[in-house]
């Protein structure tokens, strides 16, 4: 029967690829690792915001899922 998306965890290579992209965009290492592993974040939107001049930490706050506490 159908599986949910939750059963699909990004492989390590994809996670490290995402971390690299986020670090290149200016995110701190710990924040980049957390965002890379969180399926609620759309990295394309995040990188697009940073691209348009938004500070990385602010971009993360803007795109934070509503049900989770904001990033300090």
């Amino acid at each position, binding site marked *: 029967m*159908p*599986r949910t998306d939750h059963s699909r965890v990004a492989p390590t290579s*994809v996670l490290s690829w995402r971390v690299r*992209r986020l670090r290149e965009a200016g995110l701190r290492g710990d924040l980049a690792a957390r965002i890379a592993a969180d399926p609620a974040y*759309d*990295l*394309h939107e995040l990188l697009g915001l940073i691209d*348009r001049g938004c500070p990385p930490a602010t971009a993360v706050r803007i795109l934070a899922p509503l049900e989770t506490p904001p990033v300090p």
Partner: protein
Amino acid sequence: MIAGAHSSLMSLSRPTHSTLLDDDSRVWLERLRGDGAERDRAHAQLHELLVGAARFEVRRRGRGLRPSDLDDLARQSADDALMAILAKLDEFRGDSRFTTWAYKFALLEAAVAVRRRAWQDREVPLDSDHWALLADRAATPDQDAETGELIGAIGAAIEASLTPHQRRILVAVTLEDVPIDVLAERLNSTRGALYKTLHDARRKLRARLAEKGFDL
């Protein structure tokens, strides 16, 4: 009276094509929209059909993959196809048999799954300076001067008109041949969002090239 009029309006507002549907398609829809054990049986039966279609497509496209991977991909594709079909059941218009319509979902999901698997262990380039590849291509001796000039202008427009992230997406998809669904998955985004970025980037490039006197 009012209830009857309301009922008539409701039946008008919901597009139904039952008169156009073949018997087999109508039965499928009734069973899938039903409830209880019969609906569960219909889901399971449709899933098995989708697995068959997905297996065919995965084998066709996934030469070189291990048999166990092929079967895993086919089942994942069938899972995704079933979810998509159930979500879009009301969009089935009866232009084809229901099973033909449903097979297309399985074939699409299978194609996406094979592409993703093929790129799973490959580096997905996302470097804004890779646009220089374009300039390299322009330098091939067999291209005429006019084409070389245009390609050179496109390279310059990419650098001058696009933001770094637009450049990365454009270069990855158009020069590095990264499938858009693979890139969407890597970025935890949607194909639609990437298509919009590509559309915006192309619009900017076209405007820039027109400014420079190129007739596109």
